């Protein structure tokens, strides 16, 4: 019988292939980061290390303002999408209509950004018109401008984009939780909230925090939906897209791409390392518990 265990070379080659694909996906990003630290930018024969392009980006008031908007939007997305992901994961666990819920929750993943954004754009404009008509007819001025393009509409676009990811991450963590523990807590007199907060949440906390990190990164990276729905402000990725298309690939663009990549890699890298260290520790503890006690 021929398999990887009898062929070390075959096994090694498969590992090399796997790591090669990860490397191939990451190499262009590292190359962009590498160029972003070159004083002479892309295509220069000499390489002089500098952080000046980053200083230029962070010294540009317009770019800093766009960065601020991006952060506000990311925080708002976390504050809304993660609780919604948690609620929908809990609903999924207790409902009989699992297929319907999961289909609805994951459906936005399968609609491309441009299609969803254009549909939302037209929907919001119509909704705004309808609300204005009602407001005028009833003399309620507060009804107007609810759905004018701006922070709220951009946030809706971002929630639609990030919610499926938050849902999946939390649901996977929840699959390891035994609902009997909640029942036991309730039987001991805890309210639903107490049972959730003191019994369930500590066990799914890692998933909820991972979902927060994912939503921040996804929100930070999102460009298409925000571009069509944001109204009068700019986000960091929107400025990058417009620079790339209008100015071309300047040294500043490389530095901006560098900021986005380094930020994402730091956050995700930290989560991965934390996850690996934690699971190693838990496994060690489990092994220690499982070891037979030797009589002396």
């Amino acid at each position, binding site marked *: 019988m021929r*398999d990887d265990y009898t062929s070390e070379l075959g*096994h090694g080659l*498969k590992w090399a*292939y*796997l*790591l090669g*694909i*990860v490397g191939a*996906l990451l190499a262009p*990003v590292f*190359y*962009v980061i590498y160029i972003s630290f070159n004083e002479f930018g*892309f295509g220069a024969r000499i390489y002089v290390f500098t952080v000046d392009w980053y200083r230029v980006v962070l010294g540009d008031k317009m770019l800093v303002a766009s960065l601020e908007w991006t952060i506000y939007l990311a925080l708002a997305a976390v504050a809304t999408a993660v609780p*919604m992901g948690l*609620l929908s994961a*809990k*609903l999924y666990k*207790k409902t009989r209509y*699992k297929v319907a819920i*999961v289909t609805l*929750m994951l*459906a*936005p993943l399968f*609609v*491309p*950004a*441009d*299609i*969803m954004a*254009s*549909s*939302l*754009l*037209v*929907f919001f*404009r119509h909704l705004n018109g309808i609300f204005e008509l009602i407001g005028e007819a009833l003399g309620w001025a507060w009804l107007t401008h609810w759905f004018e393009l701006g922070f709220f509409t951009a946030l*809706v676009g971002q*929630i*639609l984009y990030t919610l499926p990811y938050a849902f999946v991450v939390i649901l996977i963590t929840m699959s390891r939780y035994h609902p*009997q523990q909640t*029942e036991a807590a309730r*039987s001991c*007199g805890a309210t639903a909230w107490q049972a959730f907060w003191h019994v369930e949440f500590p066990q799914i906390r890692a998933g909820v925090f991972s979902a927060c990190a*994912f939503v921040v*990164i996804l929100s930070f*990276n999102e*460009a*298409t939906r925000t571009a069509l729905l944001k109204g009068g402000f700019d986000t960091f*990725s929107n400025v990058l897209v417009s620079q*790339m298309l209008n100015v071309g*690939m300047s040294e500043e663009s490389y530095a901006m*791409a560098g900021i*986005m*990549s380094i930020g*994402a*890699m730091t956050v*995700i*890298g930290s989560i*991965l390392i934390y*996850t690996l260290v934690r699971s190693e520790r838990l496994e060690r503890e489990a092994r220690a518990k499982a070891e037979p006690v030797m009589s002396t």
Partner: protein
Amino acid sequence: MSEDIATTVLQSAGGGRDVPASPSPWRRWLGENGLQKWAFYVPVIFLVLFFVLPMATTVVWSVFERTQFWMEPGFTFFAYENFFTSARAENYVYSMIHSAWAVVISFALGFPIAVFVRRRVPRAAQHRVILLFILPFMISELVRVFAMRPILGRYGVLNSLFMDIGLIDEPITAILFSPLGVVIGDVVSFLPFMVFAGFLAMEAVQPYVFEVCDDLGARTLRTFRDIIVPLAAPGIFAGGIFIFVNGLGVALVPIILGGPGAVNAGLIVNQAIVALDFPLAMAISTIMIATLVALLYIGHRLFDLTKILEPIN
């Protein structure tokens, strides 16, 4: 069954606790059978309001009449006629072909990784290996696609490397700003998703299946073609659909890597919006959504896509 017993036991164990006095209406309204119960439906309501409704009404807006800057109620198929009788329909078909290529390449590159991890990596370490693909997936698609320009360009890394080793004399110009560039961009953007979907799909292939194949002397290719692929088909199909639809609809890739001839549905929608032709944009969105629904329906009939959910359940 055992859960039911546990529930009964636990409920009876709590039978001795004090019965609270009748709660105030305010507490009842906020309580478990009031607001708390309905809070779980907030995401569903949100998605119905801001996802299902806009997608459904896209069909309605597509038959509205175009005005100078907006549209007005009416019933006309002009936008569809405009789409099908222009080069847009041809571009749409071409972008479907390019997306199909991206699916095939992603499958060829990504699915064997999922099989390898499930088959050869110890179970405890499998998720950690798959986590490696999270990193490229979480870096902005914009940056990853943008990063392909200095790699694939006329004076890019690839051409320089080929020229340095004497493989070519002149830089290859057909890679960037061409449909090939778009296919490469789609693969780079969405390949991790094929690995994730494949990994999930391989949950359906039990380890003993491989042992049986080995014992019967089946060759690797035959095991892959006749056993693994049919069993993992729902997950493969879901991953394929995700790549296909996004390849068809994400305008960013052809904008950055495609030339004048590389257009996809997302880009056509963008162009229609810029030209303030909203009914046309909505008509193309409708066609795109119809394509997606048709593919999902076919996939469900062929492979029963609910099987993908089994690992989560």
